[in-house]
């Protein structure tokens, strides 16, 4: 990991929604990570785990009413550092689009249907780069060309419904990179697209990161995308990071049962014929509050009474060889130790029995 200050340091970010009558929902419950320029960081998890809310909170796009945002997100700006969560809306409006940009999931619904593509690109150039007249139209065409839209001058006058899904996402990316932002957030940018188009869009994002040195926060539930693109990965569950690691250790040696479950549920070509997939049981709704214990416990095959004794802390993963953890941390009291899998059954029962004794007493 780089020793310099990260571009964006998110610390204990929490988002609580207050709904009239039905109490509060903790959508994000203490997430910390940092973004470095030129690197891609992944936020991975099922729908409802808080990854999109995290990105909206960073952009300051959550509704003003009924939402409480806690923690800090310090970003290095040209004029010094600032906590994104505490900036005024006016300041945020200046930063959005110029310093940080976002690409959304559904390109069709994310584009205004009654405004030509051209105007949707030029309005951001006019706003942040103060461009006017012919120049702005030329720059917009250049941008579309750069993101791989053929015949860009003609496209400027077309409406979103006249473009294909891939082209729409390219147009959205063109808008995002228009002012060369230093931070880019992509929220499931390929989910709504065909598989072949997905690969092209990911390639485009990767190139932009390499060329411009942008920091990219990639939000996805697709581990394939993560494996191909991300340098660092945060696995989120029920609003908290449960495992954080660079790409290689995470895929080679996942320790949190949830990560293992996610990896186990991807089909692999090199798996033996006839081997069945192992899905993660239940759905993201079947969890408990973190204050009561590990939220994943109800769906976990390895949970013990210990898992229900308050929130498990985030700890470094101990390596068998005693070496550096390489930034690999997890939030589990009962992690999967691949070396010791065989011993698990033996270790498991006594622990449970002990807890049981305490409960009775």
């Amino acid at each position, binding site marked *: 990991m780089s020793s310099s200050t990260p571009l964006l340091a998110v610390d204990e970010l929490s988002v609580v929604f207050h709904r009239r009558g039905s109490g509060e929902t903790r959508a994000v419950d203490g997430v910390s990570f940092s973004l470095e320029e030129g690197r891609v960081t992944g936020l991975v998890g099922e729908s409802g785990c808080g990854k999109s809310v995290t990105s909206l909170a960073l*952009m300051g*796009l959550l509704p003003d009413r009924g939402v409480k945002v806690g923690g800090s997100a310090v970003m290095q700006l040209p004029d010094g550092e600032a906590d994104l969560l505490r900036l005024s809306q006016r300041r*945020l*409006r*200046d*930063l*959005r*689009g*110029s310093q940080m*940009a*976002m690409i*959304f999931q*559904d390109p069709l*619904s*994310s*584009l*205004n*249907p*009654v*405004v030509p593509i051209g*105007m949707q690109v030029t*309005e*951001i150039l006019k*706003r*942040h780069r103060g461009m006017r007249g012919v120049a702005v139209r030329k720059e917009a065409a250049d941008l579309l060309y750069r993101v791989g839209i053929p015949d860009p001058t003609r496209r400027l006058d077309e*409406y979103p*419904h*006249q473009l294909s899904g891939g082209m729409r996402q390219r147009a*959205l990316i063109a*808008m995002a990179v228009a002012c060369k932002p230093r931070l880019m957030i992509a929220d499931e940018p390929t989910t709504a697209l065909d598989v072949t188009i997905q690969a092209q869009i990911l390639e485009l994002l990767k190139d932009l990161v390499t060329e411009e040195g942008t920091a990219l926060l990639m939000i996805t539930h697709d581990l394939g995308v993560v494996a191909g693109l991300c340098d660092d990965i945060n696995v989120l569950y029920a609003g908290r990071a449960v495992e954080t690691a660079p790409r290689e250790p995470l895929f080679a040696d996942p320790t949190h049962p949830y990560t293992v479950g996610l990896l186990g549920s991807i089909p692999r070509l090199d798996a033996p014929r006839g081997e069945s997939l192992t899905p993660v049981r239940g759905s993201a709704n079947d969890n408990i509050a973190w204050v009561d214990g590990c939220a994943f416990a109800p769906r976990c095959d390895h949970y013990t009474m210990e898992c229900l004794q308050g929130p498990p802390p985030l700890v470094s993963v101990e390596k068998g060889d005693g070496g550096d953890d390489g930034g690999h941390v997890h939030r589990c009291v009962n992690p999967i130790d691949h070396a010791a899998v065989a011993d698990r059954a033996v270790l498991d029962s006594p622990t449970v029995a002990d807890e049981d004794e305490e409960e009775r007493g």
Partner: protein
Amino acid sequence: MLRFIVRRLLQLIPTLGGLSILLFVWLQRLPGGPEYALLPDDATPEQRAMLRRSLGLDEPLMVQYLAFLRRIAQGDLGTSLQTSRPVLDEFFLRFPATFELGVTAILIAVIIGLPLGYLAARRRGTILDFAAVGGSLLGICTPVFFLAFILKVVFAEGMGWFPSAFRLSPGLTRTDITGFVVLDGVMTREWDVVWDALAHLALPGLALASIPLAVITRMTRASVLEVMEEDYVRTANAKGLHRTTVRTRHVLRNALLPVVTAVGLLTGSLFAGAVLTESVFAFPGIGSFVYIATQERDYPVLTGFILLIATMYVFINLLVDISYSLLDPRVRAQ
């Protein structure tokens, strides 16, 4: 665009055709048949038989229907029993008054309803929102003729702020060019006439505007609320655009689309409302005329009125569709 209009016009044929059948059957089914409507109650059976023959009522139904269609196509809607003049002439005579009233009502509804609905949506849950929603519900639930009476009794007869009847004060001289009082007044620069005509339009216009105003306010509010949640508004905010740009270009432009359709659909009920309002203010338009026709069972006027409204409705909605397709590129493409 031309093909679009032609296709929409072709789609009108079955609707208007069906309506003509409905009207024809209705005329046949009138108590005692059409001849009762045309003759005094004490007419002898011989007179009736003669009339039946002269009207072609002894012909087969199909022949009668075709004759009925031919008459309509020639603009012959029959003769009013009240005035013994052709129904169409009576309508033409009174059309400018009703048109002015209708335009006044729609203008009041749009000018107040759009901003009110928009502000209510922006300030959702505030007192303003509550008042706008409550007020429009109250507007929908108040019988139009009662509202007209109240306005007349309070503001015309009580306060004396506005005239209580007619289109113009008696004794006012004006130059008649088109029959549209306000338009003529503006053209001839007779500003006293314009002012007087507007004063006469105010109360009936307000009464007639009550339902369109309520509908437009609620519609705008609902539409703006929906659009504010759209992904593209979030995109616009994520681009850091100024609030005003987001609100006008991205929110309002989309939110107004359904409102345009609603305004078109309201024109039909505006005519029905005119019958109720004009009669209260003795406003000399089609509405007052039809009001008396319902009291007097003046069937040719009633059928003529129904045909008129249906035709107007159909064409106004064609206009709405065309303007909609100009506003929404997605429709244009289809």
